[in-house]
């Protein structure tokens, strides 16, 4: 099902024309209303009329999270505060939070792209949407909320936490669509199993999962444990929140709502634009946003783009499932390591569960990588040698995939912390020294 066929199935030429027009208007707005951008554009000799095509994006300055922090809280807003109807902020793990603002029209845009997202996952007005993303300053809860209301579904705004109650209400209300982080969906599945409940005790049929990277294998686990269709959704508060891109049931990449958010892929080191198909950092220009328009915002998410038409009929550019974050990337003995690669290794083995913790340290000036893996009843045995073999196998598979040697430590089930929000997968002790 397609919410906005006119846009989502638009031919390339028409889409580019729309993007060009919107980009031109956006450049005008930021040039005249945001001193930060006016200065940046003047520095490179650009004046508003110079930009007529999205092909010129590559010559324009990039925006980073630091720019948002430096202009904390409202310095990059392009409208007077009287036009701002909402502010959200991301948790600032280091220093100040990142603040984003919305005009009434921005909230309409958000509802539109989230309506597309939920429709893409198969949701209709007949669905009961259980929203276990956090509400509040975090954009997850309210973003899905707007989309679900717009399509006319029944919204359960339960927010995060209190897992027992979540399960009970999901059962009693007959929720059909679950919206939360992928790791929380597994946490819910485990809690359901512990209470002796089966997927058939629920009416769930699909889930829209995002806000953290997750693998294909984790999808399989979620789909089998909850007996649902698991759809990957993508977004970040700086761009709008959830609703930047979403998969359709073909699960072959996420359709980017590029009439609002123009994507590019750049090399995170040289900052040069990369062609379709190459892996790099995803960058967005938010051409319709009023309160906080961002020019070439660096997401730090790693992926690649394709223009191939999807079987669902959408012509929108697609991004591959995020492969990790350029700033989650660990450099261990000079090798780039993404935590998601280790997750893939564990899940492909089918003898382990996707619960792992990476501990990176530096001993005698040499980086060390320790991987904690939980032991599971399914592959656990009474013989030491079988467990030792398993450990060697994990070690071998990780080494061949990452090109870095690792020590594997088998730990008891549920030793590794399950979060109700984003999963903590890495402890880098090198930063503490």
């Amino acid at each position, binding site marked *: 099902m397609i919410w906005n066929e006119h846009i989502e199935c638009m031919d390339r030429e028409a889409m580019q024309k729309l993007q060009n027009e919107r980009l031109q208007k956006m450049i005008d707005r930021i040039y005249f209303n945001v001193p930060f951008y006016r200065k940046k554009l003047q520095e490179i000799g650009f004046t508003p009329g110079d930009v007529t095509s999205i092909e010129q994006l590559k010559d324009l300055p990039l925006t980073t999270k630091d720019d948002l922090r430096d202009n904390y809280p409202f310095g990059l807003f392009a409208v007077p505060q009287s036009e701002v109807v909402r502010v959200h902020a991301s948790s600032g793990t280091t220093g100040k939070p990142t603040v984003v603002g919305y005009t009434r029209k921005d909230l309409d845009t958000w509802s539109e792209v989230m309506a597309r997202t939920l429709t893409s996952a198969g949701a209709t007005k007949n669905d009961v949407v259980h929203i276990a993303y956090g509400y509040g300053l975090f954009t997850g809860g309210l973003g899905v909320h707007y989309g679900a209301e717009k399509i006319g579904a029944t919204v359960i705004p339960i927010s995060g936490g209190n897992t027992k109650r979540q399960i009970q209400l999901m059962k009693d209300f007959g929720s059909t669509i679950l919206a939360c982080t992928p790791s929380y969906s597994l946490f819910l599945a485990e809690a359901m199993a512990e209470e002796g409940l089966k997927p058939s005790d629920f009416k769930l049929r699909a889930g829209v999962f995002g806000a953290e990277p997750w693998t294909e294998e984790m999808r399989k686990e979620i789909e089998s444990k909850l007996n649902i269709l698991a759809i990957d959704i993508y977004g970040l508060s700086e761009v709008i929140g959830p609703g930047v891109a979403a998969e359709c049931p073909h699960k072959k990449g996420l359709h980017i709502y590029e009439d609002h958010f123009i994507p590019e892929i750049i090399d995170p080191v040289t900052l040069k634009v990369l062609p379709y198909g190459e892996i790099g950092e995803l960058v967005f220009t938010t051409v319709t946003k009023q309160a906080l328009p961002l020019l070439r915002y660096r997401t730090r998410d790693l992926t690649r783009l394709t223009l191939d038409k999807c079987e669902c009929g959408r012509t929108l550019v697609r991004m591959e499932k995020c492969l990790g974050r350029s700033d989650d990337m660990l450099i261990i003995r000079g090798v780039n390591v993404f935590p998601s690669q280790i997750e893939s290794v564990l899940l492909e083995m089918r003898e382990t569960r996707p619960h792992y913790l990476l501990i990176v340290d530096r001993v005698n000036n040499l980086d060390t990588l320790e991987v904690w893996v939980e*032991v599971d*009843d399914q592959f*656990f045995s*009474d*013989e*030491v040698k079988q*467990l030792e073999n398993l450990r060697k196998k994990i070690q071998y598979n990780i080494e061949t995939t990452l090109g870095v040697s690792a020590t594997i430590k*088998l730990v*008891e089930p549920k*030793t590794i912390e399950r979060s109700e929000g984003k999963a903590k997968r890495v402890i880098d002790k090198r930063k503490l020294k």
Partner: protein
Amino acid sequence: MIIKQITVFLENKKGRLTEVTRILMENNINMSALSIADTADFGLLRMIVDDPNKAEKTLKNEGFAIHINEVVCMIVPDEPGGLYRALDILTKNDISVEYLYAFSNDSKSASVVIRTDEIEKTIEVLQKNQIKLVKASQLYKI
């Protein structure tokens, strides 16, 4: 003659074995034999208890990784060569022992819990050679 053995995965952390024994005590489960195999990072607690099903369920609920498998328990004379004679029979019949643990019952005999690669054949061979085996019903409720 087949006896159910429970194996519990234990991390090498202070108090893990105490925790298992506390859970068994609180659930009124009695152990009749146990051994621990240890490595640098983890240990395997293998035990025979009077109610293996209850022990399995209880420990699983407490979050432990549990494995149930089959072992044999034989009675050998508590004297020089007592274990040798039994093992010699197994070796001559091409049965390999994965591990075993033993304890003396009184001064006359010893019980030997034994895990081999072929449990049915082990029972058959030992019985044919008049080695006394402990019945499951003597150890626990079935």
